[in-house]
């Protein structure tokens, strides 16, 4: 789909009415993620249970529509997943956006996030799309630097 369509059909909904934007009470992990060249600047909060299940995900901050939509979609999808499932999903997502993962079945496993696949044709926006995912990956890997 072309980029205007991408905005219309996927990005806008999450950018204008994000479901997971806001402050979380008592998060387990909090990490700031930043794209210096774009000015995208988000803070992701996760609530992870003792069993390693992600029970809630929220973000704050500002950035372009693609970064905001992508993190909102992500937050919606990872709730209920185990750490491992979320990490696997992040790796598939980033692979798709970088054009390295092209297998249809794998991409479909991403569910709603798969809709962002056309960002792969916008190399300048790859960083925007992966910001949230990359931040989550760091958090779950305990790489909170």
């Amino acid at each position, binding site marked *: 789909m072309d*980029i205007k369509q991408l905005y219309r059909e996927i990005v*806008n909904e999450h*950018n204008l009415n994000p479901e997971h934007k806001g402050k979380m009470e008592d998060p387990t992990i909090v990490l700031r993620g930043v794209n210096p060249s*774009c000015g995208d600047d988000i803070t992701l909060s996760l609530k992870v249970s003792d069993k390693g299940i992600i029970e809630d995900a929220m973000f704050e901050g*500002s950035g*372009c*529509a693609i970064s905001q939509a992508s993190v909102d979609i992500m937050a919606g999808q990872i709730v209920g997943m185990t750490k491992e499932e979320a990490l696997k999903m992040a790796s598939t997502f980033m692979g798709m956006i970088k054009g390295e993962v092209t297998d249809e079945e794998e991409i479909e496993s991403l569910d709603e996030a798969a809709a962002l696949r056309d960002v792969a044709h916008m190399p*300048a*926006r790859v960083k925007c799309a992966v910001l949230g995912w990359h931040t989550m990956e760091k958090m779950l890997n305990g790489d909170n630097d």
Partner: protein
Amino acid sequence: MTAEDFRQDFPIFQGNDYVYFDNAATSQRPLQVIDAVSDFYKRSNANPLRGLYDWSVDATDRYEHARKVVASFIGAASETEIVFTRNTTESMNLVAYSYGMANLRAGDEVVITVMEHHSNILPWQSVCNKTGAKLVFMEPDEEGYISREEYESKITERTRIVSVGHVSNVMGVTNPVKEIAALAHKVGAVMVVDGAQAAPHMKVDVRDIDADFYAFSGHKLMGPMGIGVLYGKEKLLDKMDPFLTGGEMIEYVTRDSATWAELPHKFEAGTVNAADAVGLEEAIHYFEKVGFDFIREREIALTSRIMEGMKANGHVKLYGPEDPADHCGIVTFVIDGVHPHDTASILNEDHICIRAGHHCAQPLMQFIGAGSTARASVYFYNTEEEVERFLKSLDGVRKVMGYGY
């Protein structure tokens, strides 16, 4: 000649419908310039300055001729005052390190503006850090103008160096560099001018400005990417130590020490980029064929229409002066509710090239309170039709972004 006539000289505009409005980042190059570089490699290619054979002599002549043309282009007293560098950034680093490091002491002040490009900030931050000098920022008013009160209050007896962009690459305003230079000289400071955005748009006369140093890049005035210029007054360059050291810039070298070649070679270490210097000369010839008056007239016409269209849009915040004649072809803006990066991506879908981001001027972004802005910048080869396409595309952005209007 019309803009359409000149466009024919630019291969990149042929056979596609892209609207190139990122001229402040880099201009396009006419075939004449591209061919001049090729011609150098095809006819005169040799390492200049040292060879005793015909090709090297020819390469040297062409390289040194380019220097003469640059000197007269900016009104330098002599071509020995023209140092070829890679770009404005290298020119500014050269001044900061070779002049700044040697002449700054703790307590001294370097005065710049908050509108500067990073190339005219970071070298000074670094030199100030190392010497204990203080970096002082002049601030513009709402429209981007630096007032007389502002520069008179910031430039003081402690000031050793004043370094100001001739034209801001975000606001488009032309700073009063001549007046600031006069004041700088009155307090005994040297005046450095970053002319990257000015040289492609106006008649620069370094002696009229009384600039001690003046820097610009070839690629922004239709020249090749690998060549920049640093003008410096001979009496200052003479006393400065070289910046880069190596081949071609020496007189004698022993194991322990070295003496330097005469100006300007002292500042040009290593094999010179003669091909791109020759390309820059050709760009200057092309530029002079187009003429300053035509360039200015076209920029004002296009900028006026852009600003008018943006105001009519109703959702566009504009930066810089009210007067389109004070924009040097640069219009910086933000669409309400739309991140500039999204604006640029959507415009690109319509084959319209604009820039979005911090424009290498983050302190200015912080000052005007914008994380990021979009920028359309035109040059004489752009057309009214392109402006209309740009405005139409712009008018559609908020719809694409899901706003009702």
